[in-house]
C-alpha cells in the first residue's frame, strides 16, 4: 500500500482536509475462491486498487492493473509516481495532482526481455531503475516524457524526439534513454537510490551490496555479507542505513564508508545440509542453566540465542571460511555439544571430499572465559577417529572431560589439560588430549552419554548398550540389544533409568533400568529428540507420528499439519504423564530449561513461574517454552524483559556496584543517546560530517544547520 499524499507537501491545517487516497495491491481472494473450480491459472490474482482512507472504502470501479500475483507497489520519494513490476514490464502511474475518486490516470509501460524483480524511483529526477532476474540493472532516464510531461504543462520539443535518439529504449516506450548495468550474477532483490540521488544501491543473492555512482557507473562493494540481501532502507540521517538479510539479520551501515556498525540478529534459520548428512541430528545444543540455545548456521558459525530474551547473544565462527550463498555446501558442522555449565563447547566439522580427495573431519573444543559466551578455540583435533565421522560428543557433567564416539568403531575420552596440570605443574598450555580409546567388538559407536554423576559412561555400539568406567576405561556391563541402531542415549536425571532411542525400520524408544540391567519398557516410536532434566525424575521425548496413524488422524483433523507429539514420561511408568502435539517435528529439538527467578519476573502477573520449562524448537527454528507440569497448556509468551539492557549499560551496573548508585537521570540520558538514530546533542557537528559527495546539497544543509542552531538556543532557554 502506498499513500502518495503523505509524501507530498503537507496541506495547511486550516483548509478542509481532502480525502486521503491510498493505492493498494490486493490479493483477490474472493475471485480466486469462486473461480477455483475452473482451475484457470492465468486468471489474474492480484489487483491494484485505489482506496479512500478517509471514508475507509475501496473506490469502486477503479482497478489500475491486474497481475497474476499481487505485486508490491513502489512509490517515488516525492510521491509523484508509483509503479509495479509486471513480469517483463514496468507499469508506472503518475499520481494525479488533485485526488478525487474519478480521475484519469496517466500510465506508461516500459518493456524488457527478462522478468523484472524490483524497481526504484530517483528522488529528484525522472529516472527509474529496475532489476531483473538475470542480475541486470536497467535505468531509464526521462521516463514518461511524452505522457506525463504534458500534464505538467511543459510543452517541449522532446516529444518530437526520434527513436534513434533514445538509445536502449524498446518498442517506442516513453523514456529518454535506457542504460543497462550488469554485475549481479543472479536476480536483483534490493534496489534503492540514495537520498540525493547520486548513488544507486543494489544487492541480491550473492550477499554483496553494490554502490553504483549513477553518473559514471562506477562501483563500490560491501562484500561477504554472507546471505542474500532482502531489503535496504535509509534513515533520515544520511550517514546511516540498514540492510536486512535472508538469515534473519539486520546490519546497520555507516554510509560513506560502508562499514557495518551493528548487527541485530534474530534466530538463524536451519542450514541446508548436503545429501547423506541429514541424519546428523539437528545441530542444536541447549545450555540449561542460562537458557541459551546454540545453533549451527549457514555461514559456519554457531549462534548463541537467548530463549528468554529472544535475541542473539553471540556468534562463534567455527570454521574460518566465508560462506557464499548459493554455493553447494562442502563443509558441514555436524555436531554441536555444550557442557553442563555452558562453559565448554565442542564442534565437529566435516569437509566433504571432492571425488574422494581431501575429506577431513575436525573436532574442535572451545572454552569461554566467563559467562559472556565468547568462546575461544582451545584445541583442534584433525581426524580424531581416522576418517570416520563422529556420531556424538558428550561432556562430563562436572569435570573437564568429554567423550567422542565415531562410526568407525571406537570412542575416545578427551581430557582437558587443566586437569592434568595439578599433577604436573610444568604443563603450561591448556588443551584437550586423548585420555583413553575404547571400542566394542569393532561396532560403530552411535551414541554416548555420561550419567548424572559422571561415574558411568553409556556407549551405544550400534544396537548394544555398553557401560564403561570413563577413568579406568573398563567395560562394566553390557545391557541388552535393540532391534535397530541406537541414535540417542540419555540418563534420566539422577535416577537409575537410561533412555535409548533407535531409528530405522523398527524405531524404538526404550527405557532401561540400571539396577536390573534390563529393559523396563519400550514403545515403537520414532523419537526425534529426548530431553532429561538433571533434577527431575521425568523425561520428555519428541516423537514423530507414524505414517499410518497420520493418515487416520488426518480424517479426524485432530492433527492438522502436526506431525509430532511431545510426550512427558515418568521412567517408572510407560503411560505418558502429558502429551502435546507439535508441528514440523522432524529435525526438532527438545530441552528442559532451568528457570531462575530473575529471568521471568513479572512476565505474567499472578502466575508463579515454574522451576523448569520445556523448550521445543522445530525444524524451522521456531520455538516455544512451556511449563511441562502445568495443568493447562500455559503457553508462556516470553516477552523480552523490559529491563533488557545493552551490554554497554550492563557495564554501568558494574560501575554502580563499586561506586554506588548513580543518580537516576544520568542513566536515562545514556539510554537515550545510545539509540543510534537519535541525533546527538550537537547536531551542527554531525550535519557536515561524511564525504562531500554524500552530503545533501548545500542549500538543504544550510537550512538544517540554521534550524539546529535555533533548536539548541531554545533548549538552552528552557
Amino acid at each position, binding site marked *: 500500500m502506498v499513500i502518495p499524499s503523505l509524501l507530498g507537501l503537507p496541506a495547511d491545517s486550516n483548509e478542509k482536509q481532502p480525502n486521503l487516497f491510498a493505492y493498494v495491491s490486493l490479493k483477490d481472494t474472493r475471485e480466486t475462491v469462486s473461480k477455483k473450480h475452473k482451475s484457470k491459472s492465468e486468471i489474474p490474482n492480484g489487483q491494484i486498487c485505489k482506496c479512500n482512507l478517509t471514508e475507509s472504502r475501496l473506490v469502486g470501479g477503479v482497478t489500475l492493473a491486474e497481475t497474476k500475483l499481487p505485486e508490491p507497489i513502489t512509490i517515488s520519494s516525492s510521491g509523484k509516481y508509483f509503479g509495479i513490476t509486471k513480469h517483463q514490464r514496468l507499469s508506472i502511474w503518475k499520481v494525479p495532482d488533485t485526488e478525487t475518486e474519478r480521475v484519469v490516470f496517466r500510465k506508461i509501460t516500459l518493456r524488457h526481455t527478462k522478468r523484472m524483480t524490483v524497481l526504484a524511483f530517483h528522488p529528484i529526477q525522472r529516472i527509474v531503475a529496475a532489476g531483473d532476474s538475470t542480475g541486470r540493472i536497467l535505468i531509464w532516464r526521462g521516463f514518461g516524457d511524452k505522457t506525463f510531461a504534458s500534464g505538467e504543462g511543459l510543452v517541449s520539443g522532446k516529444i518530437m524526439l526520434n527513436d534513434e535518439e533514445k538509445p536502449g529504449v524498446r518498442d517506442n516506450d516513453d523514456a529518454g534513454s535506457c542504460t543497462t548495468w550488469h554485475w549481479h550474477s543472479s536476480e536483483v532483490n534490493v534496489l534503492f537510490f540514495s537520498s540525493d540521488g547520486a548513488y544507486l544501491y543494489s544487492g541480491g543473492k550473492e550477499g554483496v551490496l553494490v554502490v553504483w555512482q549513477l553518473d559514471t557507473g562506477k562501483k563500490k562493494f*560491501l*562484500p*561477504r*555479507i*554472507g546471505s542474500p540481501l532482502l531489503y535496504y532502507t535509509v534513515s533520515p540521517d544520511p550517514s546511516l542505513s540498514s540492510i536486512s538479510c535472508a538469515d534473519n539479520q539486520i*546490519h546497520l551501515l555507516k554510509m560513506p564508508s560502508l562499514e*557495518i*556498525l*551493528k*548487527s541485530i540478529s534474530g534466530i538463524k534459520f536451519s542450514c541446508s545440509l548436503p545429501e547423506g548428512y541429514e541424519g546428523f541430528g539437528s545441530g542444536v545444543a541447549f545450555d540449561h542453566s542460562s537458557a541459551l540455545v546454540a545453533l549451527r548456521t549457514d*555461514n559456519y*558459525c554457531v549462534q548463541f540465542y537467548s530463549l528468554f530474551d529472544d535475541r542473539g547473544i*553471540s*556468534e562463534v*565462527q567455527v570454521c*574460518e*571460511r*566465508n560462506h557464499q550463498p548459493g*554455493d*553447494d555446501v*562442502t*563443509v558441514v558442522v555436524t555436531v554441536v555439544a555444550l557442557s553442563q555449565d555452558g562453559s565448554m563447547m565442542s564442534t565437529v566439522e566435516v*569437509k566433504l*571430499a*571432492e*571425488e*574422494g*580427495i*581431501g575429506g*577431513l573431519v575436525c573436532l574442535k573444543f572451545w572454552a569461554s572465559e566467563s559467562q559472556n559466551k*565468547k568462546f575461544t578455540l582451545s584445541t*583442534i583435533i*584433525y581426524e580424531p577417529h581416522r576418517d570416520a565421522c563422529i556420531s556424538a560428543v558428550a561432556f562430563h557433567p562436572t569435570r573437564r572431560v568429554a567423550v567422542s564416539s565415531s562410526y568407525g568403531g571406537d570412542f575416545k575420552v578427551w581430557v582437558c589439560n587443566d586437569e592434568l596440570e595439578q599433577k604436573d605443574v*610444568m*604443563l603450561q*598450555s591448556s*588443551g584437550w588430549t586423548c585420555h583413553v580409546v575404547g571400542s566394542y567388538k569393532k561396532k560403530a559407536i552411535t551414541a554416548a552419554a555420561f550419567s548424572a554423576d559422571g561415574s558411568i559412561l553409556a556407549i551405544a555400539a550400534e544396537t548394544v548398550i555398553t557401560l564403561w568406567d570413563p577413568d579406568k576405561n573398563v567395560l562394566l556391563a553390557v545391557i541388552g540389544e535393540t532391534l535397530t541402531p541406537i541414535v540417542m542415549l540419555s540418563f534420566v536425571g539422577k535416577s537409575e533409568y537410561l533412555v535409548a532411542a533407535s531409528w530405522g525400520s523398527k524405531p524404538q524408544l526404550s527405557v532401561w533400568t540400571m539396577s536390573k540391567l534390563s529393559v523396563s519398557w519400550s514403545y515403537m516410536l520414532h523419537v526425534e529428540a529426548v530431553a532429561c532434566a538433571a533434577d527431575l525424575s521425568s523425561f520428555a521425548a519428541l516423537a514423530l507420528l507414524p505414517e499410518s496413524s497420520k493418515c487416520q488422524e488426518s480424517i479426524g483433523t485432530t492433527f492438522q499439519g502436526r506431525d509430532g507429539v511431545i510426550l512427558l514420561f515418568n521412567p517408572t511408568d510407560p503411560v505418558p504423564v502429558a502429551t502435546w502435539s507439535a508441528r514440523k517435528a522432524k529435525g526438532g529439538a527438545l530441552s528442559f530449561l532451568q528457570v531462575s527467578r530473575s529471568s521471568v519476573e513479572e512476565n505474567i502477573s499472578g502466575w508463579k513461574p515454574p522451576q523448569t520449562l520445556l523448550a521445543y524448537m522445530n525444524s524451522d527454528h521456531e520455538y516455544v517454552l512451556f511449563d511441562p507440569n502445568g495443568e493447562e497448556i500455559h503457553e508462556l509468551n516470553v516477552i523480552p524483559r523490559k529491563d533488557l539492557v545493552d*551490554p*554497554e549499560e550492563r557495564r554501568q551496573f558494574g560501575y554502580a556496584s563499586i561506586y554506588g548508585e548513580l543518580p537516576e537521570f544520568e542513566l536515562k540520558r545514556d539510554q537515550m543517546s545510545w539509540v543510534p538514530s537519535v541525533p546527538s546533542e550537537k547536531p551542527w557537528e554531525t550535519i557536515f560530517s561524511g564525504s562531500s559527495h554524500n552530503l545533501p546539497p548545500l542549500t538543504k544543509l544550510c537550512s538544517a544547520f540554521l534550524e539546529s542552531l535555533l533548536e539548541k538556543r531554545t533548549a538552552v532557554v528552557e
Partner: protein
Amino acid sequence: MAEDLQLQSHVGKSFPIKPKLKPKARTLLQTPESKYWSSFKPHQIPNLVSSIQSLDFSPNPPHLFAAAHSASLTLFSSKTFTQHSVINSFKDVVTCSSFRSDGSLLAASDVSGLVQVFDVKTRTPLRRLRSHARPVRFVKYPFLDKLHLMSGGDDGVVKYWDVAGESVLSNLLGHKDYVRCGDCSPVNAEMFVTGSYDHTVKLWDVRVENSRSVMEVNHGKPIEDVMFLPSGGLLATAGGNSVKIWDLIGGGKMVYSMENHNKTVTSICTGRVGKEGGDEAMQYRILSVALDGYMKVFDYGKMKVTHSMRFPAPLMSVAFSPDCMTRVVGSSNGIIFAGRKKKKENDEPVVRNFWSLGRVEEHRKPTLRPSYYRYFQRGQSEKPKEWDYVVARPKKVKLGEHDKLLKKFRHKEAFVSVLNGKNPENVVAVMEELVCRRKLLKCVSNLDNEELGLLLGFMQKYSTAPRYSGLLMGLMKKVLETRAEDIKSSDALKGHIRNLKRSVEEEIRIQQSLQEIQGIISPLLRIAGRGI
C-alpha cells in the same frame, strides 16, 4: 561499542588460507637453560698432541686458559682461541696446572714427580718443587693464598708446600691409593679435599697438627675428580659413572647421586647461568664430562640434569671461565672443544656513555628551524608515553598472493602462484580450500604443461610426507588419470613421473621394513605387558 564490533566482526571479513596446525610439543623444545648452554658458539682447537689432561682458567681478565697436553702446557686466549704461549720445560707428561689467585703465576705438575711454578708472562720456571717420588697428579693454589701450594700424586701422599722456600710444610698421609685430584675450599685457605683411587675423599685442614684428615667420605668408585661447590659447604665428587654431592657441614652425608653418564666421569667444574645483573639471579651448575662423550649440566638446586651435549670424542677435562663467557672441554684425542658466548654489543657503549654524558648531548641537539627539512618531520617518530591513549589502527589481515587470487575466484592462478612459492603447507592448504570450493580437479585439468611439471615436482617431493600423503596420494591418482595424454607427450613430465615413481617405491620399502620391525617388537611388548 568494541564489544559490538567484535560481535559482528565475522561479517564482511575475509579469512586467509591457513595451513593445518601442527601439534605442539607437550614440553618445550628448548628450555631457557638449554638455550643458554647451546648459545656458546662452538669452536674447535685441534692438533694438540695426545689427550688434554687438565684445563684451567686464569682468574683475572683476559682469562687465559692453560691446557695440559703431552709434555707441554699451552696458554690460549679465551676470546679468540688462538695460542698465546707454550711452556715446554717439562721432562714428562704434564698432568695438572693451576693459576695463582692473582693470575700471575702458574703451577704445573708432571709425571716425573716435579711441580714447577712459572711466571705466566715470561714463561720461565721460577721454582721447582721436587719431593714426590711418583707422578704428581694434582697441584692447586689454595684460595687467596699466594705462598702455598697443594699437590698430590701416585705415591698417595698429599703435600703442602711453601713455594718461596721450595720446601714441604707438611706431608698429609692417609690415602691408600693414587691421589688423583683435589680442590681447595673457596672460603678458607687452609681447608682442602683430595680424592684418590681408594674410593675416598679426604678433607684436610693444615692447621690440624697430626696431619690426619678431618673428614672422609666414600664414593664407592675410584675418584676421578673432586670439587668444592661455591658455597664451600657442599662437595661434588666424580667417580665411575656417577657424580655425587656431599654435604660437608652436615657431616659428610650424601645429598644426591647423579648417574646420567654411561662411562667414567673424568672431570667436573662449576658453571653459571643467568646474566650478570640481570633479572634472574646467577645460578651455579655442575658441568661434568665423561668418556662417553657427553657433557651434562646438572642443577644441584633442583637435582636435575638441565642440559646435555654430545661431543665426538671421549672427554677428559672441562673448565668454565670466571666471566661466564667461555667453556672449554678437552678430549682424549687432542682436541679442545671450546665455546664462547657472543658478546652483547650494547654493553660497552653504555659504559662509555657514562663518562661522556651531558655536555656532549647538549650542544649536539640542534634547534629546528622551518628552513630545515627535519622541522616538518619532527615528532613523527615519537613513541607514545605510558599514559597516552593509543588509537590503534585496525590490524590489517595479511593476505598472500594466493589469498588475493582466491578472493577473486581466480582458482588456477592461485594454485600456480602457491606452487611457485616455497611453503608446502600453504600449497596443501590451498588444495584443501579448492576441494571445499569443488575446483581442484578443474584446476588440475586446466594446468598447462609447465605448470603441470611444477605440480608433479611438488608431488614428488611431498606426496610421501605423512602429513600430506592423505590428500596428495589421492590427487596424484586423479592427475595421472586426467592428464595421462599430456604426460605421455612430454619428456620433462615423463621424467617427473619417473622420479615420483621412485620416491613412492622408496616409501613403500620403508613402510615394509617398518612393518617388519613392528612385527618383531609387538610380541616382545605383549610379553613385557604380561609380565607387569
